């Protein structure tokens, strides 16, 4: 059973790690909203080292407001979004985007 549903606010974990993982640095610690559930997949963090990737992880397409994410570097109008695939174990529930636009 997936822990999150579309519309839920989630905060991406900010763990820094050298080992293989698929969470881009630019969303670590940021708050986004679950856009869609994308199914269950082997965990790439163990799969990459020869294990079977079990247990499988729920994968989410999480959306971030571009202006919230990049601040003044964002060049588009408000409403432009960035959607990123994130595995469930990188997500925690969040109440609201931070007042500074999503930074932890």
């Amino acid at each position, binding site marked *: 059973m997936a822990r999150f549903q579309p519309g839920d606010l989630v905060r991406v974990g900010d763990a820094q790690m050298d080992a293989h993982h698929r969470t881009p640095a630019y969303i670590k610690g940021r708050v986004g909203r679950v856009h869609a559930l994308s199914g269950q997949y082997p965990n790439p963090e163990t799969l990459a080292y020869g294990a079977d990737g079990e247990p499988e992880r729920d994968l989410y397409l999480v959306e971030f407001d571009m202006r919230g994410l990049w601040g003044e*570097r964002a060049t588009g109008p408000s409403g432009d979004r*960035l959607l*990123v695939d994130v595995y469930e174990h990188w997500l925690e529930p969040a109440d609201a985007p931070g007042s500074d636009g999503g930074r932890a």
Partner: protein
Amino acid sequence: MSTHTHQGHDHGHDHDGHEHEGMLEDVELSERARRVLAMEELLAEKGVVDRTEVQRLIDFQEARSPVDGARVVARAWTDPDYKGRLLSDPEGALLELGYPLVGSAKLAVLENTDAVHHLVVCTLCSCYPTSLLGLPPDWYKSFAYRSRAVVDPRGVMREFGLDVGDTEVRVVDSTADLRYLVLPQRPAGTEGMTEEELVALVTRDSMIGVGVALAPVA
């Protein structure tokens, strides 16, 4: 010896009378290539894989090109039921047209509309729907595209000649197990065109999102 890429005529060295360059390349396989060949031989010997089947999969992959994606898009434009299946069950819909996603990552389809324009990037590496579109263009794998598409997608699209105006932009960073295919909008003025004629309007770039489908030639 200077660099070469084992891809036909894309050599960096000069052709100064070596009559058997192909053979030279054969004995200069990379460490990785030799490992893969050794593994394939072992797997075949032990009956884990069937060489014919492996070759069939290689042939199928090497035959893929953006035209295959264009066929899928043109069918979706002309058959609303097919479009529905393509969005809800991409794997089944592709199989209907003879494109099995065997042994490859799942595909997801992003529909562009008047309200929303999708652009696909993979910031971590170069994830791309190769099982349908063939190999990605070089720029898709470049650091410049990967780093800029997520920050300044409108600027990147303008460099490709595309200004989407008031349409909301959704950049999709393909970081995990899904490969994304953009379903571009059907151009205006194509109402009388057949599915086969429409195929020619669907560009590779329109299925990545840095472009739109071509306008029909009047």
